[in-house]
């Protein structure tokens, strides 16, 4: 059993935040809180992504020193998840903003942010 490293801790942290977000999504009744739970969910996910790309005792994949420019592969952490997380964040941003605008519009329609009030379509 090796020592638990930062990567496991952050991964676990990511999962916990994700689960918290999910809990909020499923149990909160206020639309804004649900949207916020979604951002929590996304954040957890992003942490997971970054954590997965982490390699023990490696540095950031920015080759700004000459030392890093040789035998790079053994010195840096995985750059790909970091690229992915960027995309993920941007997408999360887009989705969240749209969700908020929806929330705003819903509020305008019924003056309520209680999700159970929006059951016009059913069965």
């Amino acid at each position, binding site marked *: 059993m090796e020592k638990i490293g930062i990567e496991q801790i952050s991964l676990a942290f990511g999962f916990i935040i994700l689960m918290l977000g999910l809990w909020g*999504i499923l149990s909160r009744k206020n639309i804004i809180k649900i949207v916020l739970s979604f951002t929590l969910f996304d954040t957890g996910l992003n942490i997971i992504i970054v954590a997965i790309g982490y390699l023990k005792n490696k540095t950031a994949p920015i080759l700004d020193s000459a030392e890093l420019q040789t035998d790079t592969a053994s010195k840096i952490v995985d750059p790909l998840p970091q690229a992915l997380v960027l995309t993920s964040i941007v997408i999360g941003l887009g*989705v969240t903003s*749209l969700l908020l605008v929806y929330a705003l519009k819903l509020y305008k329609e019924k003056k309520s942010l209680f*999700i159970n009030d929006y059951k016009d379509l059913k069965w």
Partner: protein
Amino acid sequence: MVNPIYIVAVLLGVAFTSGFFSKKGKNIAGYLSMLALGFVSFVSLQWLHGFLSEQQAAAQIFTTAFKPPFSINLLMGKEEAVFTSLINIMGLIGGLYLFRKLKETGSNAFIALLLLIMGLNVIVMTRDLFNLFVFMEISSIAIAGLIILSQNVKSISSGFKYMLAGGLISGMLLLGTVFLYYFTGTLNIDGMLQQNLNLVKGSSVAVFLVITAIVLELKPFPANGWGVDVYEGADAGISALISSAYATASVYVFMKLIPVASEQFQFLIAAIGIITFVASNLMGLRQSNPNRLLGYSSISQIGLLMAIIGLSSVIGESTNFIVISILVSHYFAKAGLFWISGIIKTNSIRDWSVLRHSKILLVSFGIFIFALVGLPPFPSFFGKWELIMNLSGSHNFIWVTAILVGSFLEAAYMFRWLGYAIKLELPSEIKPVIKLNKIIPVILFAASVITAGYFTGMNHEYGKLINYIPLAFALAFVLIEFLPVFIKNTLAIAGLALYFYLNYQSYTDISRIFAAIFLLGGILTLLAGYAYKGKRLGFFPFALMMFAGLIGLIEAKSTLEFFYAWELMTIGSYFLIIRGKKSITHALSYMLFSIGGAYLIMAGLGIASIGKADLTLSILHQVTEYAPLVFILLAVGFMTKTASIGLHIWLPGAHAEAEADVSPMVSAILLKAGVFGLLILLMAMGEQFIGKVSIPYLLSWVGALTALMGNMMAAFQEDAKKLLAYSSIGALGYAVFGLSLMSHLGWLTAISFSITHFMLKALLFLAIGGVVWRLKTKDMYKMGGLIKRMPFSFFSVLIGIIVLAGVPPLTGFSGKWLFYQAVMEKQWFLQGAVLFFSGIIAFLYCFRLIHAIFLGQLKDEHRNVKEAPFWILVPQYILLAVLLGFSFLPGSMLKPIGNMLLPFLPDGAIHWNGQLATTVYGYWNGKTVMIIIVGIFSVVFGWLWFMNRKARKIKQFNIVYAAERPFRPETTHFAYNFFAPYKKAIGFLVAPGITNFWNRIDEGAHAVSDKFTKLYNGNGQTYLIHIVAFIVVIYLISFGGF
């Protein structure tokens, strides 16, 4: 070929450019968008064309200078070409449909549309998992944007639910993707496919997450409430985009990714798909909101595709053909239906009768419904056929059952809807505004789905063998609908006659008899059509379609041709039946029984094809596995057309409500299709056993009970045409019994009986039809004494009932005589006795028919009624002549039939000496019987005439009426509830038990449907709970625990 990357570049470029145009420039933005969509459609179609003409190999498109897996690559292969073409065309045509709406909203709306299509294109083409995720997000955000084009609380809340669900699902997808990257070190799908991902728990969980997310995008039951709500809440044009373009792309993504999953997991997904298919269709049953109904239907179709793709390891190489053909039908049909819904803008499918304001929309509506249900000549027909053949060919009977049940449910609500549109009363307050940009897409898609059907057929091994000429002839009448009846009728008769003349020699013996019944019978009944005035819109295409199907049955060489013809006949007759007055429910039940029967036939043919390389009809001769099952499936299928007991409830109403010349078509001719089917089934498969019980023995009881029930019901009808309809049921019982005897005499009975029944039922239906034509009522007790006004019709009916009752010397007796010889030979006396009893009951209704209508008291309002139209009488008298001819020379008809049967049943058992027929048991000479009876009759008549020549004709009311004069004809005419004592004695036998049985099934299905739909309580959060529950449950099932 244009590089497919330009699809992306052009759509993005135009989208970005649109930002330059503000309010004033939105027209330019709109036109530019349309142009761009046109361009991308062209690109993908160009590729498709390349692939179809087989000059093109699949092309990889790389981004940046690097090769995958280091960069993202796109693939343009045959499937991609198909799917992108579908998506882009939907973008273009759907954009055209939405043009005004989008323009109202401004250039941003066009951006959303362009980016939706762009995203979907990339989803289809990309080979990179993360890239897939990104562009799926683009598409779903674009959808979320388009949903709110019309902003009301419904669309906003449905869009919000969509966003919530989408957020959760894409989270799953991303999580899975990242972990897949962690385990494989690549994001390239092809790279992943090369690795076995199901060895390690972690990577199989990742695969699980990715696939489950994609499955959730496909809206599986029950985690699909958000999807249904979106279909209902969004503008119909947007729903069309979602259902056609978005779902199409999602299906392809699923196809692309499914190989990553383990086979077991694929089966699990197939199971989810099939559950979705059945459950959604079940829920569709109780929907009345058109968009929501279409939503359920969309979800069900995608569920079916999910199942097919999940089963691809079983289905094998034809998976793609099946998926594409079913998808294409769904694509065109669902888009078209949503569009029509958008034009009509009603909240209830009961209001769809407003479609009748626009013939072209109504026709398109019909086409879409047929395409969706999978009837020929639409693509899904071939797809479903191939699917069932493959699944039943590989012993997957449970899947087959589920698919057929689901399809049946779908047909149920779809045809109910079609019936509403065709028949329900026009709501006065709604009149749809029909704009050109909205109607053109509908017409285009309706035309396309037909074309697609033709091409699908041509791409199918057996589909290309189908003779489409009769169908084309029928459809050609759509183009000349503006001509008067006289010309069209002449053309139709000429067409049938020419076809028969050209081909009758190519038919083998027994087929020739049925060909004569179908085509010559068709000509005879069409003759009556001259009585109609005006254009008679919608009659000729369908009548000819029915005849095309009937003749196709005879010409069929392969199982597919047979099934195609069977379905074609069903379609034609459905429309003939629904033309009748109060035919809405009857046409529906006819269609449902027909479709149910057709599915049984399809399953039977599929099981028969196990282990067979080629699918000619002759496979039925060599069924080795499950032969009894095949036999039963096919027999029950055919018996839906012969309306045997239990499956008969559609017939009375359908035949009774039909028009004067349609009743004989559907009753005298169409029912024989079932007889023909049973005949070739018995010829091919012979006697089969369940355990030790012979199936033909069971069949004989079915026949006997059908005859008893049919005749008994007929005796208690007040409606003349219903009486005849029940009588047809009874008569077909005889035919079924005759066939079940499996002996030379039995078949001779059945075939000669079919011929006789064809003639006499055509005669009677035409005669009664003529009466109803003049009197405008079908209730017999409202008639009476018409012999004075309609002597020619009376004579027809007189001869008709004598033949029907089987009284010597007319030809009806030959059937009875043969029947007894056959019973004696086979020793099935009890069934024989039941049939005899039914035959006696036939007297009851025969007499009632002629008495209540023609004899008794003439009503005051009928004193000036005219004889039936000349053209309705003409075929009657032709038939009469033939009937009397056969009566005089029965051997001339029976001997050739006997000879035709010799190859199959060599034991002749009947010997002819002139017109004298002899069997081991008895003998009979039709000619001398006739001579003797005519002789005695003439002598007696002469004697009476001599004695009574001065008899004085007296007035109607001049009768011996104890002490007082009769009051009115109505009170004096004894006709209502004519056999009251009989009803009192054994009326309990005709309690509508069977009808109640089917009604209860119907109610049960609706009740279950109701329970199911209660899942969807409209709360977005509940839907999220469904999704999470779905994930957890599927995880539990596929991993057997945590």
